[in-house]
């Protein structure tokens, strides 16, 4: 059995299928959660009939509806770029999961420069969004795409700087290494070793910066200036329909899971949980990580249904005058503590 699993191609297929299953079903679950949680937060019920009970099949029904729609492209659009843009976004979203460890061995690829790869690949989606905005031959799309680019570049910086602090503290860029560093006991009470995730070990500021920047990277409320319906119709998504819109839509929710997974891995201890021995990591790990992801995704949804949208200048000011200096300060403090202790 284990020999069979050792084959390179078998492993590759298993990993690809596994990641796609987790990401795409996860995205559907998050869409459903968004519909239901949002409804209840607004004293509504939300989807109710689809699927017979609690409207559980609503995301599937929506997906089927989108698939049936005509795949339209505007007359002046740059067809090739226009058609390819959604796949760039989707690809960068799914590629994030290559390095996210679901267990000590349940990882697509345990790269030594995992954190670096993560930040590089997740910022590829900006390219897709710019492509979509530029090639749509529509003023709203162009405005939305440029706003998205400005916003994503502004918030990429605090995101990277927040991750740098974690890398400094862990002393490794490998995500498995970061999780293992958090699973190391910090102190012991009466023979019981206590391991603390980095968010408690002094990274609370970094975690806050990371989550704010992550919500901005997702361009969700309160940072959804690129899509601002009331002024830009739907931003860079204006001209898209059918399967390509579905790609963007699924990609948005998948990257919500992706960024939550990164945050859970870097700050909340990843697949490790107190009380679960290392030997069980491969079995309990995915559950623990998914639970942490679910909590973070809930917070992101919760924020969306509560807070109003920031104006463009407020949004930029928050990034450049608050988050980046604070992230730099955070790196400095973490480095000092790392050297002193």
């Amino acid at each position, binding site marked *: 059995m284990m020999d069979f699993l050792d084959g390179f191609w078998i492993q590759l297929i298993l990993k690809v299928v596994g990641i796609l299953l987790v990401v795409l079903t996860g995205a559907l679950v998050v869409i459903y959660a968004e519909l239901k949680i949002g409804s209840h*937060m607004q*004293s509504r*019920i939300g989807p109710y009939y689809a699927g017979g009970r609690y409207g559980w099949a609503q995301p599937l029904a929506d997906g089927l509806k989108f698939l049936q729609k005509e795949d339209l492209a505007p007359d002046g659009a740059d067809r090739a770029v226009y058609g390819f843009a959604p796949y760039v976004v989707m690809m960068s979203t799914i590629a994030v999961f290559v390095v996210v460890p679901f267990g000590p061995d349940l990882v697509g690829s345990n790269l030594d420069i995992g954190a670096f790869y993560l930040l590089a690949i997740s910022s590829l989606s900006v390219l897709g969004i710019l492509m979509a905005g530029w090639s749509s031959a529509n003023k709203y799309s162009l405005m939305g795409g440029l706003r998205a680019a400005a916003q994503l570049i502004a918030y990429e910086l605090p995101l990277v700087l927040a991750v740098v602090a974690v890398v400094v503290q862990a002393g490794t860029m490998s995500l498995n290494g970061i999780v293992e560093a958090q699973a190391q006991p910090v102190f012991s009470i009466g023979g019981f070793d206590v391991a603390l995730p980095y968010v408690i070990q002094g990274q609370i500021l970094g975690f806050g910066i990371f989550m704010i920047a992550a919500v901005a990277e997702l361009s969700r409320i309160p940072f959804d200036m690129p899509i601002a319906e009331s002024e830009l119709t739907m931003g860079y998504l204006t001209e898209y329909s059918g399967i390509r819109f579905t790609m963007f839509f699924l990609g948005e929710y998948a990257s919500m899971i992706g960024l939550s997974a990164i945050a859970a891995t870097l700050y909340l201890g990843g697949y490790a949980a107190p009380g679960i021995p290392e030997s069980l990591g491969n079995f309990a790990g995915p559950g623990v990580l998914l639970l942490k992801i679910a909590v973070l995704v809930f917070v992101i949804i919760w924020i969306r249904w509560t807070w109003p949208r920031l104006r463009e200048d407020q949004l930029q000011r928050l990034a450049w005058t608050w988050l980046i200096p604070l992230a730099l300060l955070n790196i400095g403090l973490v480095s000092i503590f790392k050297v002193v202790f």
Partner: protein
Amino acid sequence: MTKRIAFPFPGLGQGMWLTLKTMFKKAPVTMYPQEQEIPVPRARGVISLDVDNCTVCMLCARECPDWCIYIEGHKEEQPPSKPGGRPRARATLDRFDIDYSLCMYCGICVEVCPFDALHWSPEYEYSEDNVESLLHDKDRLTEWLATVPEPPALES
């Protein structure tokens, strides 16, 4: 230099707490086809017509902001009520239609009717497959009369 915003965190926190509380409350939703909503007193569902009270004065048709009331009538000679008296002319209603595809439920016609010929009924289930069927004629409007609730008691 723009004006600095006030310290935002208490407000943001209050907002988060409010939505969290609301999420765990039962949503005040009536699941319409299965459950029926209980109409409030004086609900504006449909306008009913009491033909006997109508004097074809046309006030309602003239006041209607949408011009959705169509009235036609003619005069009839009434025999004198006492022998030797003078015969009277009495207006008789031929047509009284309300086009509910135009009606905006403002209730001005009910308000202006000097003889209480028009009444609000709380019934609201009269949607139709085609627009023409939303033109309710005299008979249809009279049928709604049975559903008109008793007027609320007068305040002493």
